[in-house]
């Protein structure tokens, strides 16, 4: 914390791990209030949680042994990452064409498309999840319609399954994929594609060699936001999934607010945090955000 606050205005002499490579100017100081704020409202509680995980009920690593020694907790951890990865994939598949469409239509339609993405964001998460319940349940709109049309004899298992969780979470998180992608695509000069065509590339090739690499930063940003957001999901899997689809955050809530085992709950949170940070660090290394022609 101290290093961020104690920025002298004497210029580039102070170097904290290469972070302040350039001259520190007045604008950099604007970062100080949000950073200080984050340290207080995120950093401090987080440290408290980590401390609790090794001090409650007794000092030691007992809580972590319990997390890794209990099959269902490890399963829940794996399931949490797998579900988040699947949701990220689904969001990318749905969000990419949507964001692209936003860049090619006229201004009026673009406004409609942005509106459609943003409106759900302004609706309570709980209400959206309940809406999915109404659609997906055995006696819900989808199943009753299919039954009436005679397409199925038995209701499809949509709710209380992994499918329900994936559908619900993807819809909730889609805006976080579409917005970065759109911001990215909007900045791509359409003449690049024309140039590729001029040079003899077929549309598919031009897309793959020119457009796709150019949109990678948006896709990476969107995927990271969606993935990290998804890891902490709680309400949607609780309402749309079955008991076997529980994510780690649900188990954390249970430990803390039902069983009052702050230590074990903190240890689970600690594991989730560390694994997430590791994964993001690895992803950031491998998925190098490259641009344009330097792609290969």
């Amino acid at each position, binding site marked *: 914390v101290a290093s961020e606050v104690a920025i002298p205005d004497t210029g580039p002499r102070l170097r904290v791990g290469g972070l302040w490579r350039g001259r520190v100017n007045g604008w950099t100081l604007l970062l100080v209030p949000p950073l200080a704020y984050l340290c207080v409202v995120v950093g401090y509680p987080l440290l408290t949680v980590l401390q609790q995980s090794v001090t409650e009920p007794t000092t030691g690593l007992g809580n972590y042994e319990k997390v890794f020694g209990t099959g269902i907790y490890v399963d829940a951890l794996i399931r949490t990452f797998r579900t988040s990865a699947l949701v990220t994939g689904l969001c990318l598949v749905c969000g990419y064409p949507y964001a692209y469409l936003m860049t090619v239509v006229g201004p009026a339609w673009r406004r409609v498309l942005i509106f459609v993405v943003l409106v759900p964001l302004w609706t309570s998460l709980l209400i959206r999840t309940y809406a999915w319940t109404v659609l997906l349940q055995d006696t819900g709109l989808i199943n009753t319609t299919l039954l009436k049309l005679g397409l199925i004899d038995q209701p499809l298992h949509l709710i209380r399954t992994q499918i329900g969780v994936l559908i619900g979470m993807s819809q909730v998180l889609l805006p976080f994929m579409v917005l970065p992608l759109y911001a990215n695509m909007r900045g791509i000069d359409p003449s690049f594609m024309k140039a590729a065509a001029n040079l003899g590339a077929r549309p598919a090739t031009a897309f793959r060699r020119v457009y796709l690499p150019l949109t990678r930063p948006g896709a990476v940003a969107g995927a990271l936001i969606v993935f990290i957001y998804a890891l902490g999901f709680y309400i949607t899997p*609780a*309402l749309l999934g079955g008991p076997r689809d529980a994510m780690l955050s649900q188990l954390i809530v249970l430990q803390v607010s039902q069983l*009052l085992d702050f230590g074990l709950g903190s240890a689970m949170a600690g594991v989730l945090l560390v694994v997430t940070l590791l994964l993001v660090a690895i992803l950031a290394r491998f998925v190098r*955000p490259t641009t344009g022609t330097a792609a290969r």
Partner: protein
Amino acid sequence: MRRRFVGRVAPALALVAVATVVVACGGSDAPSESASGEKSGGALTLTTWGGAYQIGQTKAFATPFGDESGAKVTVTSPTDYAKLKSMVKTGNVVWDVVDVEPFITRQGCEEGWLEKVDQTNIPQDAFLASMKPSPCGVPNGAYTTMIAFQPDKFTGAEPQNWADFFDTKRFPGKRAIQNYAAPGPLEAALLADGVSKEQLYPLDVDRAFRKLSTIRKDLVFYGSGDQSEQLMRSGEVVMCACWASRMFDLESQGVDVGRTWNEQVIGYDDFVIPKGAKNAATATEFIKFAVSPESQVRMTQFVPWGPSTTEAAAKPADATKEWVPTTPERLKVAISTDYDWWTENFDDVASAYQQWLLK
């Protein structure tokens, strides 16, 4: 390269950040309502579970108490045990009276994060046999886990007991049950498996899980009262191990609800005072007021919550009496949750229940 990445991603992130802030601000905080009081008589914060229950407690206990004592009573929700314990731990106690389950009362009393409640002015023999006050808590009302069903789904015989609830051949269809261990699911399973009422406790936990597993694929687990109502309203389940107060709510929305009081599993809540509560004296007065016969009967004008005292339980208000679980004749066929056993075993059994759910 990094700079270009940042340059492209930054505006996108900013857009998302704005959207998130908007969403976050749109979210509502825990509801709190002020329940009157102009006379200067101190202040009191009552924390309870929300919904119709909270409205009932506000109208039956908080508002009249404020009028009588002049205290400014604030009612907030929901009860959160983690918050309660943390408040005391960090010395920042903002709740004065909290509505909790009895095993929390006993745990908090033993671990020292609840105040002992002065009960010299509360007649101890006024309470129902199964709802005894303890040093840190006074029972303020009963709820029940009972068998409710869709009458039109069963034209012949209707489910009469837990054995019927577990009989998916005679009574086919999905049934809802809570995803929370105590009290209810395990008691129901053992009764269905032939254990007698008298020998129910100590619960044979393994046997209960074996019995529950036999109908696992027909069980739908609910995590809140709202969800249980929704499952019944939509016809998603034909039967439900549900709370009477929720079925009353469902019926008042015009849904036809079948029921049996037989083998209903009665539980109750205590009013407790967190250690170091700022208005502990007013809190003690409030608790005394809330368990008086008049207050207990008044509660049944709004929600079918069973009075915890014998006098009040015998004369529930007309508005809800069809759904009040603690009337003398309904108590005869009821099972009382043994909170001594649950206090001893809650942590282990609640964990085991969660693990069973995840398996």
